[in-house]
């Protein structure tokens, strides 16, 4: 096996990099990575489909956002998709730095990797 990075890790990490770069700069462009069958669960709220997802993300109440990735992990799934998990911190506008946890399922459709499932959580427990 050697030190060669497995394919799923390469794809996963380049996706993650691309995703957060786009998110931090202009998140309205994020539609390109989702398809109509994609599902997003954002802090417990579900959205389905490319349009709904982009709407949700662009309507989030901050203008500036910066993500910093603490760790990421990628695994292949039995049906040749990739499960990616990201843990990191973000800072929105002038808020405090908050931890977050996000996971993606990436699928290869027509030679392009798209995101079919996306689940995002802030690292603060909602007890209330």
């Amino acid at each position, binding site marked *: 096996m050697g030190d060669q990075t497995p394919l799923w890790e390469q794809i996963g990490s380049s996706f993650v990099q691309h995703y957060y770069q786009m998110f931090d700069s202009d998140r309205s462009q994020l539609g390109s990575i989702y398809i109509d069958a994609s599902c997003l669960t954002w802090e417990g709220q579900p959205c389905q489909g490319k349009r709904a997802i982009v709407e949700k993300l662009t309507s989030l109440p901050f203008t500036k956002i910066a993500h910093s990735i603490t760790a990421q992990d990628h695994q292949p799934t039995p049906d040749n998709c990739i499960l990616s998990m990201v*843990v990191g911190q973000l800072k929105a506008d002038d808020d405090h730095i908050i931890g977050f946890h996000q996971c993606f399922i990436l699928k290869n459709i027509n030679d392009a990797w798209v995101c079919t*499932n996306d689940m995002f*959580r802030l690292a603060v427990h909602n007890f209330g």
Partner: protein
Amino acid sequence: MSCSAILLGENLGKETAVWTEIGDEAEEEDGEDLSEEEIEAKLAGSKSRCVSSHSHLVNLLCDWSNRIPICLPCQQIPHGTKYDKKWLVPALQDICSIPYTPIQVSQCMSKRFDCSQQALDLKSIHTDPDLVSRDIKVVLNRKTNMEAVIKIIEGNIPQLTSLNLSHNCIQRLDELSELVTKVPHLKVLNLSHNDLKSEHELDKLKGLKLVELWLVRNPLCDLFKDPSSYVSAVRQKFPRLLKLDGNDLPPHIGFDVDTPTTLPPCKGSCFGSDDAKVYIQRFLQQYYSVYDSGDRQSLLGAYHDEALFSLTTPCNVQNPSGLREYFKDSRNLKRTKDSTMRFRLLKHTRLNVVALLNELPKTQHDITSFTVDVNAYTVSSRLICHTLIVVDDKSKESIRAFSRVFITVPAVDSGLCIINDQLFIRMATTKEISRAFVAPVPPPSSSQVPTLTAPQQEVVSTFSLKSGMKLEWSLKCLQDNEWDLNKAAHIFTQLKTAGKIPDVAFMK
């Protein structure tokens, strides 16, 4: 001429015991000649009782069928010596419209029936001396023979709980699938030393609530790569199984719909649907209670054969000790490419996964801390993304958070089976800590509650030394008295003099 009555009884009405009046002639083999018609008439109509002089085996068999007491000695068809069996048997068969088995088989089976255990031993029945001596071959790998045997069981002992069919060259279980409906209380089944070629044969018996199964010495056993995949394949078909081939199986993660679980509400979680919610909450509850139990071996049942597991944990210089127990191999640290040092392990196949899980520190999770998100990812698989607060059993100081993702597929026993598992372990945030373990978690025998500050711990130790009480009792006393050491000491002395403090509170 009656002992086929037990089988003919069905034809003639169950209440009718067709017994000829044997009377004193019972012992004599030579009666008068009866014509064919007379025999038929006797079979068709008479209702008489069997003479109790043949009671030596009646008692044994009254339980077998409490409708029709059977008398075995009469199994020699009286007057039969005058008539060739070859003629009589077909004659009887003509009268009786149901498939007919010579009474000897039924007799033989009844000898092998243990009423006290509700157990029937049909091991090697084709070599049974009683049958062989009469030229009767009951070869259970033949459909008709097996069907007949099952019919006898169904008709006489449907409450059977244990059945031994070993050493019978059985190749297929098609006929045995009748047992699922006809003998529903069957718990113990021995199919060892037979000729079953594939585990799919066992699918025909699904629905039997087997607790003990013997399969050893069947060709199907050799098809498994390793013992645990054999065990788990069998367990998937029979979820209640406790013993396989004589070996006790570890308790199984059950997904019984019958057992209710009380789960605290997961606030803010998104399950996708209410059905999924109950299902998945139960799965997580069971998973983590095994995870916390100290032996994670039975998690094997929760994972798919080809499961993948990876564990990631950050290691930064500021807090090197907190996650140390999760670093097994320092070689890996040097190999990681990230600038933030990171430790990762990736395990493939369920055996490796559970082996690794068993080596991780013992934990206790806070069940109120779950946040769970579920997405359907294909028609049947689920993506379960969850976070929970976990305390390491040994060093109560470090409270961690698991951020974990499962991809699950449906398991054969209508449970869930994990095929991908990604775990990220980090130290909990202060906010998470302050909210953790708010609901009292029963403390393990001798250690302190995790949320104590250092000064508090000191007070508890002092109090414990002075009072002689164990730490958790000292803690309770202090907590009950607002951490006022003097007040607590006063109350303690009062209670002690009054003899109200149990012995178990004191350190030995």
